[in-house]
């Protein structure tokens, strides 16, 4: 059979050493993506390093007023953690918009960042894919691109990052804590995932052997004015066509701070600081939101069957900002989900 060895790591240092000692090793947290990839022969690690005994599954307040999410905390435990619900409801909503309860019970926060794309061609060994097999070509370009990118693409890859949680983390400006052969370091969330460029096989900026140990949320959680809007082909258990994390700070009807991140449109959660800057000092009106939306999609490029996502993304941004400003659930197209018994 497809043999691999397995060790259950009990300390970060040991896990990192174990990884360095093997050529084709992979860390495994909840396994909700890696095992799929192994079944499909997309990933074929010869050694797995189990992380579930590392601890690192707690969620704690940090001295600077933020919140630290252990890398091994499950998505479900994170979404329903009282501090997250109270202080970072945007993160709660984004997590709950993804996958299914069963998957969220297994999936870890660190693993969520490490999810690989859901590009149909990446998953199908019969079709060339630069991400799976560098240099073989991109089958998605010119093909069926419903879940593919419209921003930040390259001629080598148009895949998207599939996470919902990461879109909220990008908007909240989380910090990724990692540990590796050269010690510990932190990575700003916006620098964690990368655009495909000419190295689409690289999803993120982790160095070889590095392990995510935690995520730090800054104090500011935008609990008062936020929205996570996810548009997809069915109401649950589908990846985003477009998703928007919007967070505002308002002084009366004037925007004093804004965060805007998109999912389903790029190789990484797409944050547009220029568009955010345009919102500052402006009234929270549809006109303002439309201008920001136009700015975000300025450089967007459709791939044929996903051309519609440009217009859809604009409308979704406007709606998400409106919902964030008004905190009016009636406007939420996903409200149907909650009304279902």
């Amino acid at each position, binding site marked *: *059979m*497809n043999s691999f060895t397995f060790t259950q790591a009990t300390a970060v240092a040991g896990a990192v050493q174990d990884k360095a000692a093997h050529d084709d090793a992979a860390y495994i947290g909840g396994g909700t993506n890696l095992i799929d990839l192994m079944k499909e*022969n997309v990933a074929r690690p010869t050694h797995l390093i189990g992380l579930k005994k590392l601890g690192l599954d707690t969620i704690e307040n940090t001295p600077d007023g933020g919140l630290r999410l252990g890398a091994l905390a499950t998505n479900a435990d994170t979404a329903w953690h009282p501090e997250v619900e109270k202080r970072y409801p945007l993160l709660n909503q984004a997590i709950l918009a993804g996958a299914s309860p069963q998957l969220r019970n297994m999936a870890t926060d660190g693993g969520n960042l490490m999810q690989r794309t*859901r590009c*149909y*061609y990446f*998953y*199908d*060994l*019969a*079709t060339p894919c630069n991400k799976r097999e560098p240099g073989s070509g991109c*089958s998605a370009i*010119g*093909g*069926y691109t*419903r*879940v593919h990118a419209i921003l930040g693409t390259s001629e080598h890859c148009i895949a998207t990052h599939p996470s919902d949680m990461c879109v909220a983390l990008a908007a909240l400006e989380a910090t990724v804590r990692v540990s590796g052969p050269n010690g510990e370091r932190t990575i700003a969330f916006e620098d964690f995932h990368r655009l495909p460029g000419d190295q689409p096989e690289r999803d993120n900026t982790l160095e070889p052997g590095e392990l995510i140990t935690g995520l730090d949320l800054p104090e500011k959680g935008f609990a008062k004015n936020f929205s996570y809007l996810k*548009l997809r*082909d*069915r*109401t*649950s*258990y*589908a*990846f985003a*066509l477009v998703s928007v994390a919007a967070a505002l700070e308002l002084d009366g009807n004037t925007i004093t701070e804004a965060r805007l991140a998109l999912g389903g449109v790029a190789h990484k959660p797409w944050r547009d600081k220029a568009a955010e800057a345009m919102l500052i000092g402006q009234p929270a009106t549809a006109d303002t939101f439309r201008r920001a939306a136009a700015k975000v999609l300025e450089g967007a490029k459709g791939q044929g069957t996903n051309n*519609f996502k440009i*217009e*859809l993304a604009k*409308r*979704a941004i*406007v*709606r998400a900002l409106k919902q964030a400003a008004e905190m009016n659930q*009636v*406007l939420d*197209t996903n409200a*149907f*989900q909650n009304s*279902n018994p």
Partner: protein
Amino acid sequence: MSHTTDYIGKPTNRVDGPAKVTGTAKYAAEFNVPNLLYGYVVSSPITKGKITKIDTAPVLALPGVQEVFTHENVPGFAFLDRSYKDDVAPGGSPFRPLHDAEIKYSLQPVAMVVADTFELARYAASILHIEYDEVAHETELVKHIDEAFEPGRGKTGYKPPKSRGNFGKGWKEGVARMEANYSHHAQHHNPMEMFASTVEWLGDKNLTIYDKTQGVFNSQQYVNKVFGLSKDQARVISKYTGGGFGSGLRPQYQLFLAVMASLQLERSVRVSLTREQMFSFGHRPETLQHVALATAADGSLTGINHFAVAETSQFEDFTENVVGWSGTLYDCKNVELGYRLAKVDVFSPLDMRAPGAASGSIALEIAMDEMAYAAGLDPLEFRLRNYSDFDQAQNLPYSSKALRKCYAEGAAKFGWEKRTAEPGSMRDGNLLVGWGMGGGIWDASKQPAVVKASLDVDGHLTVSSGTNDIGTGTYTIMTQIAAESMGLPIEAVTFVLGDTTLPESPLQGGSWTAASVGNSTVEACTKLGEALLKQAQKMDSPAFKNAKIEEVEFANGQLRLRSDSTQAIVLRDIVQASGETKIEAENSTVLTKLEMLKPPKYSMHAHNAVFVEVKVDPELMTVHVTRVVNAVAAGRIINPKTARSQVLGSVVWGISSALMEESVMDHRFGRYMNHNYAEYHVPVNADIHDIDVIFVSEEDDKVNPLGIKGIGEVGLLGVAAAVTNAIYHATGKRVRDLPVTIDKLL
């Protein structure tokens, strides 16, 4: 006189429910026979070409790998095409797995590794090196319309559509007209249970085959003919099926491969397919359709034109009745119908729930909505003005037709009279509200089926027939019918099915099982009753000495006189007195077969009317189907509970077809790219809201003695069109290419 054992028409829990929820119900891949080997199928990554090289040596070198079967070492079995034809094979040359080097479609099985464990077989299959010589393929139906041809009567039951009158004249006579093109894409059945066969080798080519199928006899005769085995050598068993929807009507290739490997290796072998491989055989074919309608000033149809082109494979002409229904459902003198096939490099399509009608009703029922608007009529009023009281297509009266009741009761329950016609005129707060309707018609048919009824010395009745239960409720309704027929409590009756050692029954399909096996169950029980009376008459019981069968009844576990119910004999005493362990009887199918030879006297159909509410976000264009009322006229409903479940499933599927479901082909690769449950979208619970199912009363003593019309398919009809029509009513956007995904509404 009513009895406590009168179960027909009463909501009854599934008799197989406990076995299913406790896991004791076993499916084809769950029979762990001793010394089992596991086969894993390798699927072609290319769509057309030839295999030029297969390097089996490194795979065979793996300890535990028993064999790698390819076209190079699979012996030729039966020579003629007809040996490979199953009961519902279309015209043409059936696909033979691992027969030669030729690749005819993407995901074609090209090899099978057999190993000691499933995991090893799967791994070995993943490293099997195969080289191909690829040639250009053609999978795009729209590019082959010019080559489309009129199919012959290849498949059993297929009749080319018949036109009547003069459509051109009717078109000119019309004062209002519409014409438009409609399309939908391929769909794959994707039942939860994937195809699997476990073949138990019993020595000397004697096999017990646990197969996922909708017809054990169809699988058996296929195995008999292909491998030259006698009926005794190939017993096929299928007690439980985790969904079929038509996919199990034809023996799938894992059956061939498992039997082949078992015979070659003289071992027990199981072959189960993967979810991806569930996209490697039959599917609902993509169709391109054109409908033109014209109406007179009073809204009556002066002309109907319905034309369809469907895809088929290069090797078989799969046909279905897509347009024929348009000549029956509405009253019209001038009807022109056409149906063509075009060959592309895919596997042969296959019947899928309401085959043909589901596709045709999308075009016809959207067109009817468009015509209603063009004629300035309410869509329901328009249908009522064109109500067919006589089947003009067959030139026959209906045996019964309660579609008017479906319209009336459905509309009342839905509140249709509150609808305002103007698109975009109804709102719920910020959301656009749309109300749409549709409906359909399906054959009420009956096939010969043999049923055996056997009463044992303990008074337990076992009724058996080699039919299947694909989740529809066959076990339950046959138990109800038998219990009522013999006056026994349901606990004293067991219905046995899914085994070729049982009396022969047809495939479970076409919505005919309830009528076919149900009526045969009554007949078998009647025969059993006669046998019991005869035996009773040998007993010392003067009251029954000269009693005729009409003068007795079976009630309360007794045989008794109708005129004096105190004159009674307990049924098990009759069996005990016989000295036998049981008394048995079987029905005869002679009368049914004779009936089928005679020209029909009536047009026999089930009908439905569907009313749908959607709510649409006016900016984001997200659609939610918030309410559905489906009113069905399907004769007598044996079990309102299981029948309702059938219609609920149909409604969910209709919503799926309308909004999300399609097998997406990348024509550059000739491959369906969304071949998994994550990307082949069907509704989740959160997509489904209120569904009301109404069974209108419809008595029919002509269709068959029990008055059953069948419920498996009719409920699906009109649902997708009604959703699409409701979207038009909400938004003013008329989408004619299904599914109506968000991009088509922006």
